[in-house]
């Protein structure tokens, strides 16, 4: 979703006619776009005034969809399924290199879209990596299986593609250090195409040579849905 579409979605939401699927896309865009987020905040302030501190029925319905899609698998776990990792362990595993993102580009493939990440049953899963220079210009990108060259002083950012909601982790293969999520071993992501993740990681001393990065999509029972790897190099 780009900013124009996001603006339209926010207006439709305010008017009470935004579909739940579009709401999920909008949320993903807001995580990465400060100006749209400000627009959202302003409309939400008006909504809050109208609803006397509450949320409009439209917003509550959209959040209900998000909530129930998240808890439904957990409320009826498969027999013998591994339990969810404890939160304390998640916190302890926080990757030190991860900082809150200041910018994540939304890259829409056009004529050269060779993005064919590996998955099951012909579904498209995977991550792309981008190198973003200090001026927020994207200097390079890598598809699954490719190599991203990214110099010190830049940041690396990711987008993912998933045909349905899943748990996602993106980590360095050698050390297990995570790019995503910032806490915990994995985090839920919603279905989407080229959805920008709200984190960026500065390239520092940790990247002295080529390093393989693995993105793993799993279901709530811990089963692997898809894996995608690429290489980072300074």
């Amino acid at each position, binding site marked *: 979703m780009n900013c124009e579409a996001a603006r339209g979605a926010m207006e439709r939401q305010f008017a009470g006619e935004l579909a739940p699927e579009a709401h999920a896309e909008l949320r993903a865009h807001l995580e990465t776009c*400060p100006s749209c987020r400000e627009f959202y905040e302003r409309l939400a302030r008006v909504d809050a005034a109208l609803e006397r501190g509450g949320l409009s029925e439209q917003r509550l319905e959209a959040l209900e969809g998000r909530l129930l899609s998240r808890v439904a698998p957990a409320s009826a776990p498969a027999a013998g399924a591994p339990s969810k990792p404890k939160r304390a362990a998640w916190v302890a595993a926080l990757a030190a290199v991860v900082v809150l993102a200041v910018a994540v580009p939304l890259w829409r493939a056009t004529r050269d879209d060779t993005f064919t990440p590996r998955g099951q049953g012909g579904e498209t899963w995977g991550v792309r990596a981008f190198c973003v220079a200090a001026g927020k210009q994207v200097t390079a990108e890598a598809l699954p299986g490719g190599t991203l060259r990214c110099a010190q002083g830049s940041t690396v950012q990711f987008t993912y593609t998933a045909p349905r909601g899943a748990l996602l982790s993106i980590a360095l293969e050698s050390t297990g250090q995570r790019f995503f999520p910032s806490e915990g071993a994995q985090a839920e992501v919603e279905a989407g195409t080229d959805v920008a993740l709200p984190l960026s990681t500065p390239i520092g001393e940790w990247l002295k040579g080529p390093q393989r990065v693995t993105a793993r999509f799993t279901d709530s029972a811990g089963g692997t849905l898809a894996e995608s790897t690429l290489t980072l190099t300074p």
Partner: protein
Amino acid sequence: MGWDRALLQRFRDGDAGALAEVYRQHAGALTRMLRAAAHRGQSFAALRSAVELENALVEVFSRAFEPRARQVYDGERPFEHFLMGIARNYLLELGRNREHAVGLELAEEVDLALSLERGDVHEELEDREVAELLRTFRAALGDDEGRLFDLRYVEGLAQATAAERLGQTRIQLRRREHKLRLRLLEYLQVHGYLGAVSASGWSFVKEGT
């Protein structure tokens, strides 16, 4: 008043319908409590942002719906208090993780406290601006639209109740409310409340090959 025993049992069993019912019954109240706590500051201050507030709402219910939490809730004490306890823990975790993630130092914490104070003033001014815009918008409405506005946003009636009061179906009322909100949106734009926000964003088009 305690929960109906059948609902409590279905809730404990993780029945999807029961979870949805519980959410619908308590989401509005929890939102108001979180917003009130956000204005009091401390760890809840992050919830002044609508995005953060909505994230928190989903996270708190999500934790309350985890199997262990469902077994712990007794159906007797107010569920909102149970949810607020979860919210408190979530926000403390969030605060700690963010400090860790950005390497927040003491001097930055002072800056943050000052910016929150400045934020209080800014928030209050913006709330006043919105209140004034809504007042003038309401004053310019005709009788029918004004009645709808009052029932929904002054008396705070749910759509179904407001529809009943107006002798309409809920669908008819939703259509009218949709038009009313579009008109409000236009009013906000014309009066510059939304116009100041740029929509340039981070849309990115790859250059070269």
